[in-house]
Structure formats: structure tokens, C-alpha cells
């Protein structure tokens, strides 16, 4: 009796779920219907009369507003709002104001898919989304089906641009660049012969760890390749077994909350190997969590942050005045907002497909340098830098290659 009741409960739940999914699929093609006109308008944007002002132009943002990465999401939302305010103060785009519609992906694939479906069903022209690659990846097809252009401020797993969708564009350089930088730094700067790699099984961190292992081949021995569970606080068991393998360097590829704890606990266990962390751990909180004395000398591979760009010297005070200290992706999100605005301007229309095409062909000068995309949607000339913690501060030890 009881299992039978449960079965019925389960099947009705599945039915409801199926309906939701169907509804999501159903709405996508209907959004696409105006898109055939897109190609035409794109070729002759200058002839277009300024589009009639039919209210605000709505831009979507799907970011982690809650959950473990909520801080990053809020940083990015601040930047986008700041950019839109500036653009609107100068008359907006096509004579209309830009309006931001924020949805929460909580850095979680299920929530991200729900949020993306909601965004494409709304009157949204283009979207800025993607901090956690793992959460962003499953939403790509939804945007693709809706023909909606996406500018990705932070997420940078290699797989993101391997689907061949022409709507997805990354502001950040990818894991391939990061893995190469990390392996090179550990081997050539630190002289590491034995390396331990730790990831957290997320799409992004696992990929970075695997790519780093490939890059280390023939240069150093990978003595440990371990995964932790995000959200946990005690990594002493993993670290104790890594300790017995005596690595020269440890590279942790996931996020700052666990990164700080790993540094702290490794030092507490008497591990004196050099420690390097990936760009997901690039946040001052890392040093706070690890404790300044433990974090000293820790290296971070990261895409250039707010402070490393030439364009940021007058941008930072403007941001600070409004929202306080900028986060590592504040500049990227700000640039993403300008890419979207400029693309709409160049497309001369709010048609989704035309805007998506204009985003791919964008060529503007952002705070993070010149922004244009390759035919796969990667940032042209993207690169990673290396920071080290010196006296508790992140200091650039290896800057731009050019």
C-alpha cells in the first residue's frame, strides 16, 4: 500500500516536471519567430531610423544572487547596474533606457536552467550570465534555441565554447590559458617535481585540474589527483594522505571558501609545499579565511582583476564610491554590460538574433582592454596572470604576456 502510494506521488511529480519542461521547450521556438528578419537588419544598421521608444530595453542577468557564490553575483550585478546607469544618463541606447532583469542561478544547474527559461520567455533582448561554469553550461542550449546573445563575464570552462553555439561569448580567458600558466609557473618558477592537484568535481574545477595534469606531463609528476566536496569544512583527511606523498606544490582549482580552509589546514598539518590556487579562489576573503601567516607566499592564477587593468585607474574610484571594494569580476561584468549596449546600438534594433550577431562581431575598448571575440566565442588575446600573497596582499608576480 505504502510503496504504491509513493509511486503515485512520484509519478504525479514527474508529470508536473515534464509539463514544466515541455512548457520551457514550447516557449523557446515561439520567441524565435521574429528572428528571420534579424539578418536583414544587421547588414544595414545605418539606414534604420532610431527604433520607436516602446518602453525600456530589457537586458537579462542570470547570476548567483544566493548560495555560496552570492558575493560574486552581487559584485557583478552592481557593476552592470553602474554601467546601465551611466549609459542611461547619456540618453540610453536607440533612444530608450536600458533596464536590468536579474534572475538567480545560485551557482546550481537546476536553478540556472529555470532562470534561463524564465529569461527567454520574457521580453529580454540579450543576457549577461555565467559565473559558475557548471551552472551556466546547461543553459547554453536554452539561449541558443531562443537565438539570444549571451555575454559571459566570468565563467571560463573550455567546454562552454565547444558546443558551437554562435550566441555564447566569453569575456574571460579560458581554462586552457589558465592551466598552461599554472603548470608553467609551478615547474619553472618553483621548480616543482611532484605536484598534487585538488578539485571539487565541478565542471570548471575538474577541467582545470585535468588540463593542468596534461600540461605537466613530462615536466613534473602528479602524485595526487583528489576531489573535495564543496561546502565541507574539514579537509584534514585528504591533506594528511597528500602529506605522505610529499608534493613540492599543491594546485587547488576550485573556489575561495574551500581554498582558504585548505591552505589553513595544510599549514596546520605541517605541509610546507608551495600552494597555488585557481581564479575561482581569487578573493581577499581567501587570505582572511586562511589566516595571513598561512596564506603568505600562496600563488593565484587569475584573469587580470580590477586592479591590473590600465583602464581601471579612474574606474575603481567610481565603483568604490557607489558599492565599496570591487570584486575580481566587477570589471568583466561592467565590460559585458557595455558590450551588450554597444551591440544593440550597432544592430540598430532590439531583435534578438541581430543583437547576438552584433555581440559576436563587437570590437570595443573596455576597462579590461580591447574586447573582441574569436569565431568560437572566446575572448581574443585572453591571458592569465599570476599573483602571490605578500604581506597579506595580492601582488602581481607575472603579468600580461604582451
Amino acid at each position, binding site marked *: 500500500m505504502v510503496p504504491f502510494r509513493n509511486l503515485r506521488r512520484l509519478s504525479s511529480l514527474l508529470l508536473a516536471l515534464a509539463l514544466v519542461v515541455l512548457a520551457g521547450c514550447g516557449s523557446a521556438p515561439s520567441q524565435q519567430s521574429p528572428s528571420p528578419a534579424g539578418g536583414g537588419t544587421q547588414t544595414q544598421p545605418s539606414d534604420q531610423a532610431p527604433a520607436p521608444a516602446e518602453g525600456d530595453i530589457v537586458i537579462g542577468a542570470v547570476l548567483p544572487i544566493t548560495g555560496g557564490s552570492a558575493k560574486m553575483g552581487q559584485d557583478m550585478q552592481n557593476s552592470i547596474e553602474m554601467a546601465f546607469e551611466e549609459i542611461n544618463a547619456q540618453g540610453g541606447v536607440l533612444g530608450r533606457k536600458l533596464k536590468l532583469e536579474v534572475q538567480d542561478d545560485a551557482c546550481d544547474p537546476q536553478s540556472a536552467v529555470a532562470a534561463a527559461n524564465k529569461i527567454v520567455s520574457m521580453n529580454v533582448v540579450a543576457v549577461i550570465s555565467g559565473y559558475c561554469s557548471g551552472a551556466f553550461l546547461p543553459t547554453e542550449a536554452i539561449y541558443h534555441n531562443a537565438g539570444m546573445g549571451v555575454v559571459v563575464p566570468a565563467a571560463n570552462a573550455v567546454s562552454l565554447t565547444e558546443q558551437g553555439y554562435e550566441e555564447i561569448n566569453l569575456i574571460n580567458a579560458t581554462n586552457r590559458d589558465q592551466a598552461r600558466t599554472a603548470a608553467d609557473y609551478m615547474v619553472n618558477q618553483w621548480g616543482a617535481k611532484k605536484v598534487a592537484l585538488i578539485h571539487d*568535481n565541478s565542471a570548471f574545477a575538474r577541467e582545470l585540474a585535468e588540463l593542468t595534469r596534461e600540461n605537466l606531463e613530462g615536466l613534473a609528476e602528479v602524485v595526487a589527483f583528489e576531489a573535495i566536496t564543496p561546502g565541507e569544512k574539514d579537509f584534514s*583527511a585528504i591533506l594528511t594522505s597528500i602529506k605522505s606523498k610529499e608534493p613540492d606544490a599543491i594546485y587547488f582549482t576550485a573556489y575561495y571558501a574551500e581554498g582558504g580552509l585548505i591552505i589553513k589546514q595544510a599549514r596546520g598539518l605541517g605541509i610546507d609545499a608551495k600552494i597555488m590556487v585557481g581564479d575561482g579562489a581569487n578573493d581577499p576573503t581567501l587570505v582572511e579565511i586562511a589566516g595571513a601567516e598561512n596564506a603568505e607566499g600562496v600563488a593565484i592564477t587569475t584573469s587580470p582583476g580590477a586592479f591590473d587593468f590600465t583602464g581601471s585607474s579612474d574606474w575603481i574610484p567610481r565603483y568604490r564610491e557607489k558599492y565599496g571594494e570591487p570584486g575580481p569580476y566587477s570589471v568583466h561584468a561592467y565590460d559585458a554590460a557595455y558590450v551588450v549596449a554597444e551591440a544593440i546600438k550597432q544592430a540598430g534594433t532590439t531583435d534578438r538574433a541581430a543583437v547576438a550577431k552584433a555581440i559576436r562581431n563587437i570590437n570595443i575598448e573596455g576597462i579590461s582592454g580591447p574586447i573582441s571575440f574569436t569565431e568560437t566565442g572566446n575572448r581574443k588575446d585572453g591571458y592569465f596572470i599570476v599573483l602571490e600573497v605578500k604581506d597579506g596582499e595580492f601582488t602581481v608576480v607575472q603579468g600580461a604576456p604582451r
Partner: protein
Amino acid sequence: MSQFLEQLLNALVIGSFYALVALGYSMVYGIIRLINFAHGDLYMLGAFFGYSALLLLGRISLGSGVTGVLLAMLIAMGMTGGLGVLVERVAYRPLRGAPRIIPLITALGMSLFLENAVMVFKPWGASFRVYPVTLGRAGFDLFGVHIGYAHLAIFAMALFLMVGLHLFVERSTYGKAMRAVAFDLEAAQLMGINANRMISLGFFLGSIMAAAAGVMAGLYYGQINFLMGFIVGLKAFTASVLGGIGNLPGAMVGGMLLGVLEVFGTSSVGGQWKDVFAFGALILILVFKPTGLLGERTAGRM
């Protein structure tokens, strides 16, 4: 050998946290047969109350010493205990006569409510908070094993609280009354026991154990955030089932056992298999001894 002992020490610390939180699950289940899924969040709230207490005590230069830490812990335990009672009063008591699935869903809702309330509460917020005081890594070496004072302090504190709770439940009049309510709520009421008060007391005791664990986790790991209760809650629930849910010594044994399983799972097979070990043990127990390791030893549910 020294690696084995080091891992054992790691296991005891993790196990202490699980055991303290597991006690609350077991206690509440024992009395009103409710799996209080909001219990992990009381652990989180305990950590946050301790955080704020330490900040405030730091301002009157009391914060960083042993007195300050113990005082902050007491404050956090008191506040969280009160909150636990409040949660029971507003969310579970009105549903006392309802089918068991309903308070269970309410508990899940309460868990989400508490997490998000902490997130939007400005002084706490969404980002990770660094604890104002953290336990040092100082210690001594014994047979080549580094034993931190922090490890010992946490283990001793957890043991002290667990023994204290056990004695209270077994020896005091209130404990007796609680056990009576757990055994048969209606008969206990007929004997003149105020059942609602005993249930509140159960929630209070469970919550202060969770709060103590939360504050110690903050002191030990140095970092807290509003989602920290989720995984610990899940693991502590597993621990209480391992030991026999409703059975207090079982919760302690289950917590320690889960810590050991996780640590040795990690060191023998690899970190990604840790949870497979922990939850695999849960499945085995449920299949072969559904009452848990110590579940049948005591006649009553406490």
C-alpha cells in the same frame, strides 16, 4: 602508523561535530517522532550568534581570551536554544495532530527560511564571515603525531556536553519527564506532566548542543556562512540513523563512527569516495539493522 594516528585524530574532531548535531535530531525524533530538518540550520545560527557575541565581547576587550570564548559560547547556546524553542512553538506545535509528513515538509520550509533570513540579515549576509577568534595550531608531538590543543579542546568539550546531556536525561526529574513523554505522550499527560514544556525542553537541549558545535566549528575552521548547516545537518542525520535514531548514546556513537568512516574512506580510496563510504554505511545499516547500531538496546525511544 603515524599517518593512521593522525587520521584518527582528524576523525575524532569531525565525529565530535557530527555527534553533537546528531543529538538534536535524535532527541526531537525521540520525543515527537519528527525529523527536524531545520536542525542543521540551528547549528549554523549558533555559529553566527557566537560570531556576533565574539565581536561584541571583543569591543569590551573580553573577546579573545578563554573567558571571552566560553562566554560567547554560552551566549550563542542560550540564543540558539531560545530560537529552537521558538521554531517548535510557531512551526511544529500547531501541527501536533497532523499526519507526520506535514511537519516534515514544514521542517524543510523552516530550514530554507532560516538560511535565507541569515542571508538577508545585513550584519551576517551572504558572504563568508571570518571568525573573530580562531583556535591556534599549537600542540605537542607524541610518537611523531602532531596533536593540536584545539583538537583536544574540541573533543573534550564535546565529550563534556554529551555526558552532561546524558546525565540530565537519565538522572534528573526533567529528564525522566521527557523520557515519559517520549514513551507515551498521552499517558504522560495523564500523569500530570506538561508535555508541551517537555517538548520545548527537548528542542532547547538539542539546539544548545548544535549551537556549541557551531561555535566550535567557527573557532576551529575560522569561516562560517549561511549554508554551512546543510551538509552538516545531512551528515548528522545520517549519524543519528547509524546509531539508532531516538537513542542518545546511539547518536554519539553514530557521529564518531561516521567521522571515522569518512576519514578512512578518504585516505584509503580517495576524497571523491568519502560520501560514498558514509552513505553506503547508511544504506547497509538500513537494510540489515534498520533500528541502527544501538537502536534496540534501550526499550524506550530515548
